């Protein structure tokens, strides 16, 4: 099947999904930390068919991140990374966001910080750039105490409250949760985010992991530990989405973890996600992965006789005995 042009699949194929008040033209979103250092990187994914693109996580101050190696592939379909949240600081990053917004991309700003005050300051600056939502990264598994904090309901709640209060209700706040198999803790933290005013939960970030090089007899990554992504973590991510969906959580869920094709996305939708984010898939399938998935969804809809993707969301609940 020939690839359709940007405009046709994006606007005519009934793949829209709604994350609260925000409508996306399709459910595929570029995950934070992938390509998004510059406007050009965000545009690469946008032109590749993404329904939205999430920026690199930015903080108050410029940070170089960890020393290399920063990524390493592992057998079994996994990628480990320890980039270390490199970013130019929010002020220097604003022109990149504005340029991507000007080009017509639906941009989501990703924020990191140590305390709620930092999240608030960064969020306030991002709010004026034309971004359509903010994603709070409370879950990087290889920088300081970020990871542990993301599973602490009090921390999550404080960060969401501080940001929501500062930017008002116009820009929805998403919270990106840590990768974990401790689903009850994950659900508790997500419920805290919801109670504090979050508009959506993004699950999951990379899982804390370690890979060693046996010739060098040391960790394969410069930082030592890293975060695992890719197909290896998909079942964990699907379970996380399902556990969130079947809990008391009422806000939309965005699934992330190991998506390589349209069937992976449908799995996430059935488990309860309304959209998905894709990171490692961009490396493994190229930056047109978003468009490819949309085409597969068009075919899936035809095969199952459905007009939109909407009836699939949470379908597992209906079909479960």
């Amino acid at each position: 099947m020939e690839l359709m042009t940007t405009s046709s699949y994006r606007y005519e194929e009934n793949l829209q999904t709604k994350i609260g008040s925000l409508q996306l033209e399709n459910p595929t979103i570029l995950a934070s930390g992938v390509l998004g250092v510059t406007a050009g990187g965000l545009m690469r994914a946008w032109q590749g068919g993404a329904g939205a693109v999430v920026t690199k996580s930015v903080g108050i101050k410029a940070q170089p991140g960890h020393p290399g190696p920063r990524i390493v592939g592992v057998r079994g379909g996994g990628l480990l990374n320890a980039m270390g949240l490199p970013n130019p600081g929010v002020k220097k990053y604003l022109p990149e966001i504005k340029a991507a917004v000007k080009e017509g991309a639906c941009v989501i700003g990703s924020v990191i910080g140590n305390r709620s005050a930092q999240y608030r300051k960064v969020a306030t600056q991002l709010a004026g750039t034309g971004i359509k939502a903010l994603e709070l990264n409370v879950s990087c598994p290889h920088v300081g105490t970020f990871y542990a904090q993301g599973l602490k309901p009090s921390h999550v709640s404080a960060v969401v409250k501080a940001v929501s209060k500062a930017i008002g209700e116009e820009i929805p706040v998403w919270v990106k949760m840590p990768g974990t198999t401790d689903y009850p803790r994950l659900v508790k933290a997500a419920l805290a985010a919801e109670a504090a005013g979050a508009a959506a939960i993004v699950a999951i970030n990379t899982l804390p992991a370690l890979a060693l090089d046996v010739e060098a007899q040391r960790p394969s990554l410069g930082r030592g530990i890293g975060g695992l992504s890719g197909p290896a973590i998909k079942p964990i991510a699907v379970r996380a989405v399902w556990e969130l969906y079947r809990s008391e959580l009422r806000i939309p869920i965005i699934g992330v973890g190991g998506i390589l094709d349209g069937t992976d996305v449908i799995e996430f939708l059935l488990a309860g996600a309304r959209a998905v984010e894709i990171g490692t898939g961009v490396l493994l399938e190229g930056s047109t992965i978003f468009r490819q998935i949309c085409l597969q969804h068009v075919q899936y809809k035809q095969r199952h006789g459905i007009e939109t993707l909407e009836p699939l969301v949470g379908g597992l609940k209906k079909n479960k005995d």
Partner: protein
Amino acid sequence: MAPRREERISLAAPVAPPTLRHHVTPILEVSKETPKIKAFVLSAPAIARTATPGQFMMVWIPGVDEIPMSIAAVEPDEGHVEFAAALVGEATRHLHKTKRGDLLGLRGPLGKGFELPISEGKPPPQSLLVVAGGCGAPPILFATDSALHGDWEVDVVLGATTESELLYRRRFNCLTHTLVLTTDDGTAGTQGTAVQGAEVLLKQRRAAGAEGYAACFACGPEPMLKGLVKLAKKYELPLQVSLERYMKCGVGICGHCIIDIKGSRVCTEGPVFPASQLYNTDFGKSTLDATGRRQRL
């Protein structure tokens, strides 16, 4: 009867590709090529077999960092690869301290290299102009060697600040008859820039009524490349340049080396770009530092 081997079912993907995992191997040889530049030879058969001129490797200095390095030479039969590193920062300071037997990790080959144009009905030999400035000589050495093997005629311009910094001078000399040297201070060859050296060759060729070069490959400091792009336009020379940008992953996922609004990645679509693709990019204008801050060139 020999027992039948059980059929193996594999759920796991094959081992990660050589672009995503390190081939860790001892250094076979370190040589001081100039006061600032050392060359390293290692055994990496898979890279030596498959690398093309202009491609690069991510070189891991265990415990220190990982940095991109253009491939300077390969010996496919022995499985050897060579790269050369100038002393520019923390990682290369450690690299310069390593000696024979120390371990380095290599990922690659990465990126897209130089491409010799396919001759349309024209019999060889065709002529190639290559221009190397400063520590940009390694990929040009590889390209020169490879083109000569393909029966091309290669004219080389090698430029540096001063005579002692003319990288791979002897090796270029062994390879080609036409080696134009330029130095900023006039200690060797013509005093001036590599761009001026290239223009002398282009003028000579024009004056002699000879056919123009079928292609020009260049690597060096960005102001030099910028000058060459202008020159190429003037002489209608099909130019390919190898760019350098801060790279963090080397495989096109981190986005740190993107140079335009379309998202062209130096590590994946490059490092070698046709000059025609460099309009409306950051080429000659800006580069990102380790944090992602834009720095004017």
